[in-house]
């Protein structure tokens, strides 16, 4: 508990450094000077400053938003479902949202804003599908949320398959969406961030208001109920807020996969499991990781610009191995903590 404030401040500092680095580094060189002038006395005729303000700044904002929302959702889902593999990407939320956007664009020729709304509907639909499949498989006595994770994998594969089928069917659609479907932080999507940021902030506020009952639910539904928590209500509110927050991030820049799965595992050893401390730090860590990944994707493979989604999947894949080893293959960890 005493560590909470320094951890929060350190996370703020990391985010700030990530933000400055993301904006200042470009074309293989640091442009601190241009960055400083761009934020103090912006000169639109300067090429360097224009790139910073009109291209990198929107990218950075999207990265911060998507990273924070996805990481917070992952933290809440892992806590409430009591499974270390729970995340927006493993419970069908991301895949559902992506499918609805692509299907909407193909069949109804949806515009940008309508695509965002479709992503929200798809995220909810994806999670509900996952939940129903788990119900059918008998999620009555499932304290570790295992059937939910398995049906989440099933649901994700199902929606991802449908999305691929649609993309393959229409070459025009493929060019337009191939990047987005794998998670792409790009300044052209800034308009969508403008349309949806308030949803994420709203969900985050709701989640922060119920940190205590959510933490109590981690002690088991009966313990939480006996301490005065309306468990069903908190579940519904928390899951709705996480699904909408995630889906709004997908609506902006496509499904950013592993942040939601991996960040909670990095945060928990530092802040503990109490959501009051874990949620703010998750948001900051998620945002920082997306900022840094965006920078690497943009600059590391010059002259090619990699998409942020695949890069995060690469990094996340490595961390995923560590998680599986820690939680599923090793019994000694539990004994030693």
């Amino acid at each position, binding site marked *: 508990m005493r560590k909470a404030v320094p951890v929060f401040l350190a996370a703020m500092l990391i985010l700030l450094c990530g933000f400055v680095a993301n904006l200042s580094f470009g074309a293989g060189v640091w442009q601190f000077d241009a960055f400083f002038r761009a934020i103090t006395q912006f000169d639109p005729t300067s090429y360097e400053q224009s790139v910073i303000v009109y291209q990198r700044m929107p990218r950075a904002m999207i990265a911060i938003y998507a990273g924070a929302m996805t990481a917070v959702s992952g933290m809440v889902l892992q806590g409430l479902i009591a499974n270390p593999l729970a995340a927006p990407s493993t419970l069908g939320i991301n895949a559902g949202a992506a499918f609805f956007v692509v299907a909407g664009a193909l069949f109804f020729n949806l515009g940008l804003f309508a695509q965002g709304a479709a992503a929200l509907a798809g995220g909810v639909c994806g999670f509900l599908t996952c939940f129903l499949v788990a119900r059918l498989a008998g999620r009555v006595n499932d304290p570790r949320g295992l059937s939910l994770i398995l049906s989440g994998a099933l649901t994700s594969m199902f929606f991802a398959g449908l999305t691929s089928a649609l993309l393959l069917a229409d070459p025009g659609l493929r060019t337009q969406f191939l990047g987005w479907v794998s998670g792409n932080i790009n300044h052209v999507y800034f308009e969508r961030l403008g349309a949806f940021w308030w949803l994420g902030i709203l969900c985050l506020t709701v989640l922060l208001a119920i940190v205590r009952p959510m933490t109590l639910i981690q002690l088991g539904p009966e313990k939480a109920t006996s301490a005065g928590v309306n468990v069903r209500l908190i579940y519904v509110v928390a899951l709705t807020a996480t699904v909408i927050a995630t889906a709004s991030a997908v609506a902006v820049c496509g499904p950013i996969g592993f942040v939601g799965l991996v960040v909670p595992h990095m945060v928990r050893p530092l802040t*503990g499991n109490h959501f009051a401390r874990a949620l703010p730090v998750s948001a900051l860590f998620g945002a920082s990781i997306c900022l840094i990944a965006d920078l690497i994707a943009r600059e590391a493979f010059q002259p090619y610009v990699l998409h942020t989604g695949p890069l995060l999947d690469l990094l996340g894949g490595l961390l995923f191995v560590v998680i599986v080893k820690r939680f599923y293959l090793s019994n000694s960890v539990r004994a030693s*903590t």
Partner: protein
Amino acid sequence: MSFIEVKNLQVSYGQTPVLKDLSVAFAPGKVTALIGPNGCGKSTLLKAIMGFLPVSSGQVLLGNREMEKIKRRELARQVAYLPQESHCPDYMTLGELIELAGYSRYSLVGGPSAKDRRLFGEALEIVGLKGMASRQVNALSGGQRQRAWIAMVLAQDTDIILMDEPVNHLDVKYQYAVLELVRSLSEEHGKTVILVLHDVNLTTAFADNVVMLNDGTLLASGPVSDVVNASNVGRTFDVEADIFDHAGRLVCLPRRSERTAVTA
């Protein structure tokens, strides 16, 4: 002081009735032990009282109010519950755990008051974990962990405490330490304690009253000295047992019988 009373309670798991027309009142300010063989409905009774299970018929009353009509938050200020198995997420500290107990008294944005904090300190002191608030719960020893959960129940600051097998998995030393603690809750702090026990000897040592259940029906209830006798214990557990008075404390010694030896 309000007390819990159960009237004609029926509870079923699916088609199987677990509690059959059970009526019993729990005396305020006393320690009451629920005893009976495995599967007789002891835990079910506690869960039904807490409203965790659907009740087929009958009533659970707190004072003269029906318990299911009381709001969760209000109920949590009057009745605390310790489940049979408690799990704490990794990395959670003892201090965080105790602080959560006061949830029903906090406003949406507020936290514990100065009075709450004093209470949390006292709760830790009573269970002998003072000064360990920053320790991780899952890093404590088995006995300490059980006392941590009891501290959480205390920190909820209720008049009535329900405990489902609080001394399971503990060795003799901690069984006695925990039950001594339970005893002091009622004697020094005036709490009503209802707890599920397995052991007749622990019951006679620490409880004021006893409720004996078998197959979902009440066999006997009342003060320990009146109810614990060879006939009642025999009928409850389906064994032959001798009851001795040892320095004012009843001791139960089940007999070895050929029947047990053969069936085992």
